[in-house]
Every structure is written in structure tokens, then in C-alpha cells.
């Protein structure tokens, strides 16, 4: 009995690290959220729940950032998941060509966010950029845009860059899932006369459900935490059309309002928790 108790000691180092690097800062964050601390002064005032109330009810910049983040999340989760699945289905077969193509589509993932931002800044530049040049080249010059300069659609263009950046990574997850599906299921489907679409709908899609859950959950977190790509594309601080929650918190911190930034972080965590909860519920409903 004594020896089994001593086994708990093995958890102590991990608990110390968890407490020191997660619980303690989280508790400090909660404490700061109720103050007007600027981040460097030796004193501060307690303001109670005023920061949290302001963040939720009286802060247009935060509201814009939240709206942008939700738009970004929706487009990235749908676009990235769909593209990753499409690529995985097309490239799951083991051949030399598909191996090369997998490597090609995976390539953006290994680039740094700053490099990706530079690439897409060049693509989106209204005067020298690739996107407008392509439109002009194919006779669609009337659709030229200012992309990141358009307040209402700018965040969607960033979402496109994010999808390009990470779709290859999610493709790998799907390929692993598809390769786990027994060939017998496809053989049975073929015997029943199923075409390619029906095979996908009734065999592949249900069988990659665990991979989809993983991809959606990971992409959601990734979308909420998009920071360096946005700063790289939009500059610092980003305009309200490109501001998301992570960059808003950073701007508030840079504005020497650490207490208020801590309150924003709490609402940020709550938003992630809520979206994740809703996704889990939806996944359970869809997959049973």
C-alpha cells in the first residue's frame, strides 16, 4: 500500500510544471482582469467586473474582432476541411505521382507564417499583385479588387491564405484516415452497384468521421489563434476589418492596458470553449 502511494510522487514534477506554467498564470490573468494595471506601474486600482462588462457590452473594436474571427473561422473550417478531404480522396492511392503531389500540397505547411504573409501580400497587392494580373490576363479585369483594403471582405481573403497554408497538413490526417478503411467495404459497395460518389458518401465519409472531428477541432483552434499571419498581412495594429481576437488582445496589451487585455483574454477563452462545445455537440449529432 505504501509503495502504491509513493507512485503519486511521480506526478509531482508534472504537477509543478502545470501549476507554475498554466494554473498560476491563469489565476494571475483572472486577477489582472479586475484591475486597471498598465503592465508596469507598481500600483493599480481594482475595478471589479468593469473590464469584463466593457469588453462584452461597450467595445466596438472587440466586437468587430469577434465578428471577423467568426467569419474567418467559418470560411477556414469549411474551406480547409473540404479542400483537405478532396485532396486526400484524390491522392490517397499509393503512386509515384500522388506522393509528389502530396509533398507539393504539404509544402506550404513547412513555411513560416511570415513567409506566407509575404507571398500573399504580393498576390493581393492591387497594383503589382498576381491576383489582379491574372484577372486582367484572362479578360476579367472588371473584377479587380483591393483585397485586403476592402473593409467588408478583407478577412475572407486572409482566410483564403490560411486555407492555402494549412490544407496540406489536414490532407495528411485525412489520408491516414482513408488508408485505414478496409478495401472489403469498397468491394462490397461496388458489388452493390455503387458509383464513385456513392462510395464516397456511404463508405469514405462515414469512415473518416473521427479524422473529420480532429481536423475540425484543430482548424477551429488554429483559426482562433491566427495571429502572425494576420499581423504579417495586415500590419500592426490591423485595421478593424482585419482585426481578430488574438490581434485585438495584443493591441490592447501594446496600448499599456494589461488589465483590460486580461479581461479580453477571458472572453476569448470563453468564446473558444463555447464554439468547441457546440462543435462537439454537432459532431455527435451528425455521427451519432
Amino acid at each position, binding site marked *: 500500500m505504501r509503495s502504491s502511494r509513493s507512485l503519486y510522487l511521480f506526478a509531482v514534477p508534472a504537477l509543478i510544471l502545470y501549476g507554475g506554467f498554466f494554473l498560476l498564470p491563469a489565476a494571475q490573468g483572472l486577477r489582472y482582469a479586475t484591475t486597471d494595471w498598465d503592465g508596469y506601474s507598481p500600483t493599480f486600482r481594482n475595478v471589479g467586473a468593469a473590464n469584463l462588462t466593457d469588453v462584452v457590452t461597450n467595445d466596438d*473594436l472587440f466586437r468587430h474582432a469577434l465578428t471577423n474571427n467568426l467569419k474567418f473561422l467559418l470560411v477556414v473550417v469549411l474551406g480547409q476541411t473540404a479542400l483537405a478531404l478532396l485532396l486526400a480522396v484524390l491522392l490517397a492511392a499509393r503512386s509515384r505521382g500522388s506522393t509528389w503531389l502530396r509533398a507539393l500540397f504539404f509544402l506550404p505547411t513547412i513555411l513560416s507564417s511570415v513567409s506566407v504573409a509575404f507571398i500573399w501580400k504580393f498576390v493581393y497587392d492591387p497594383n503589382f499583385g498576381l491576383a*489582379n494580373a491574372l484577372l486582367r490576363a484572362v479578360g476579367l479585369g472588371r473584377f479587380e479588387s483591393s*483585397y485586403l483594403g476592402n473593409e467588408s471582405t*478583407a478577412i475572407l481573403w486572409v482566410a483564403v491564405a490560411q486555407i492555402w497554408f494549412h490544407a496540406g497538413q489536414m490532407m495528411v490526417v485525412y489520408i491516414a484516415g482513408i488508408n485505414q478503411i478496409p478495401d472489403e467495404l469498397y468491394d462490397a459497395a461496388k458489388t452493390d452497384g455503387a458509383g464513385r460518389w456513392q462510395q464516397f458518401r456511404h463508405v469514405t465519409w462515414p469512415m473518416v468521421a473521427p479524422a473529420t472531428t480532429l481536423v475540425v477541432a484543430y482548424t477551429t483552434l488554429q483559426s482562433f489563434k491566427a495571429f502572425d499571419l494576420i499581423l504579417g498581412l495586415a*500590419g500592426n495594429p490591423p*485595421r478593424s476589418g482585419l482585426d481578430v481576437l488574438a490581434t485585438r488582445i495584443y493591441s490592447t496589451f501594446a496600448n499599456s492596458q494589461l488589465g483590460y487585455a486580461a479581461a479580453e483574454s477571458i472572453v476569448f477563452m470563453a468564446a473558444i470553449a463555447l464554439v468547441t462545445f457546440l462543435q462537439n455537440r454537432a459532431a455527435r449529432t451528425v455521427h451519432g
Partner: protein
Amino acid sequence: MPYSRRRFLHLATGTGAAAFLAACAGPGGSSDPTSASGGPISFAHWRAEDKEVFEQIIKDSGLAVRQDISPSNDYQSTALQKIRGGTVGDAFTAFRGAQFLEIAKAGISTDLTSKALVQKYEPNLITAGAQDGKQLGLPYQLVFNTPLANRDLVTETPKDWDGFLALLETLKGKGLTPIAWPGGDAANAGQLLNVMVVNNAPADDTLGRIETGEAKVTDDWFLTVLKQYQQLAPYFQKGATGTGSDAALALFAQGKAGLLATGSFQVSGVRKLGATFPIDLLAPITTTADKARYEGVFNATFILGVNAKSSKQDAAQAWLDRLSDPAVAGVYANGTAQHVTVKGVEYTNPDLKALAPWLTKKTALAPRFQFSNLDVRGAVENAAVAVVGGKSPEEAAEAAQKVVDQKK
């Protein structure tokens, strides 16, 4: 001695514990006095383009100085937190306005009032480095936040708003972009606001009063500013609100744009892109000629300071002494194509010589740096960008004022 697994674990544990304790020492902990006073000092700044010139000055001086350079926007956001730790920025720089005020408030700036080097500067150009009667920093660069003009394309200098619009129309008629404006780059898009405000504002400090609530974005004078932005919109390059600083710079340097709506700090960048045309400054006069109070805008920035938290303050001050020497300041000025606030500097760079008349012209201190709250500044500047993007001036002003009311 044989090494058992247990002995190896003891050794590893001991090494780990020592490393952990050493890490905990960090800033604020006790440190080895030889390492605290030895080694190069850190000079923190944001001018990556000046790195080589500084390296030359360091080499010539024989001082041990390491440059810690961050991009300007990152520097604006994070310098205070880095410098206050004392390990970076024994000597440091600050932007005029919000950042300098925050650094002063945090007690990081050493009082230089009684130091001899202060006498080497033009007194009227270093007021931006003073706070509560103390000279806490020394603005080093003298820049003109006034649009650059390609004098091969822009031969006249309009004296009023109507004349300015006529000039733009003429340039447009020639198939040129009248004004290259980096509307998609937050840091540089706001430079144009300086010259748009100085003659429209009822007083020199009115823009800053928006933050205190004594003035509003919806006031008539600021609506006039926004309406003038609306008039300028057709004369900016295509997709102006999405254009970055490099693209605007390239348009101007390639001779495709008559004006570049940033400032003299980009002259060296234009030259690096191969431009050979004569460069001048040209501010839009936003009123009638008789009501114009200023011909342009200047800023005294890149405020040098000595970190009060540093253990190498003497060495940091020696570095500032060196930079304050007129001959060394001349090396910096001519090497970077920027005027300086140090007295008695001889400008040999052709662009600096060409812009020298601006040193005596009637120019206003750049008003956008009157803001101490970056969210408020962003809201006001973004109102102008929104108008160029198609929003009505009234709508843009109301949206900005709402943010100001929430954030001030």
C-alpha cells in the same frame, strides 16, 4: 570510477537543478558583476535600414555596442516591456508621443537635463524628449512628414486647396498616378493625415484634444478633413486602401506617381530603388492661401535615451555622447538621408541639401503623435481610410467617434 545508471541520474538531476536556478536568476535576480558590467551594451531601435551606418559609427568609435533591432510596428508594441527588463536597450530609442510618454511614466528614462550632450542639440527641436521639466530623451532625427514630390513631373507648388486639386487633375490627365498613398499600411497611411490636419484644425493641439473629449471627430473642421480625403480618392492609385508601403514606394520610384504621401524618411528608400529624379516636398495646402498657417509638417523622433534599469548606464551614455558629436551625427545624417537635431552638422548628401530649405520653412510638429492612446489614434486615422474606401465622411466620423468615446 564506474558510471552506474543511478550515478548518471544524480549527475543529470544536479545539472538540471543548477540550470533551473540559473534560469530563475534572470532579470532582477543577483548576477555576476563582471558579466553585468562587461560585454557590449544593447542599443534598441527600429531602423533596420540604418543598421550599416550605425555599424560604421560603432566601428569608428571603438565602443562595444550591439544593435537590437525590431520592425517599427513591433517596436511600438513591445519595446517598453523589453527595455524595462534591463537586459535589452541599455541605450534605446522611442517614438515621439504615446511610446515616449509611456516609457517616461514607467521610470525607465534617465534624466539627461544636466548632461553636457544636451547642449549639442537645437533646443527647439528636442522639446518632444522633455517631460515634467526634465530632458528624458533626445530626439535625434528631424523628418518631414510631408509628401515627396517628383520634380520632373510636379513643377508647380500650389498655394491653396483648389490649386492642389488642379495639379492632381493635370497629373491624372497625363496618365500618371497623382498620389501614391500606402492606405493599406497602418503605420504609413496616417502620415498624410498630418498635412491634412495642420491647416484645418482650429489650434495646433486640436487633434490631440479628441482623446480628452475636448474635440470630436464629428466636429466641422475634421469633417472638412474627411471631405477633402473624399476629393483626393480619385487621385490615389488603384486599390489605395489595400496598397502596402513598398508598393506605393515602388510606384513613386518608378516615376509612375507624382507624389508619395509619406515623408522624407522614405527618400533613401526611393533612391535604393534606382530613382534619379529630383525629390522635393510638397504639402497639400488644405485652405485658401491666406488662411494657411503651415507649409508642411515635421517630426523630431527617434528619441535617444539611457535605460535607468541598465547596469551599463555609463557605457550607454558614452554611446549617446558619441552620436551627439556633430561629425558623427553628420555621418548618420548623410548616410541615411535624414536630417538630425544636432547643431552644426554639415549635410553633404544631395537629397539633404535639396531639402535643406525646409529646415527654415513654416512647418508644424506632426499632430498624429499627439495621441497617447493607440486605439484612439487608429480610430481617427481609419476614418480617413474608410472615406477613401467609399464610406461617407459623416458615417466614418460617427463610427470613429464612437470608438473614441469607448476608449478615451
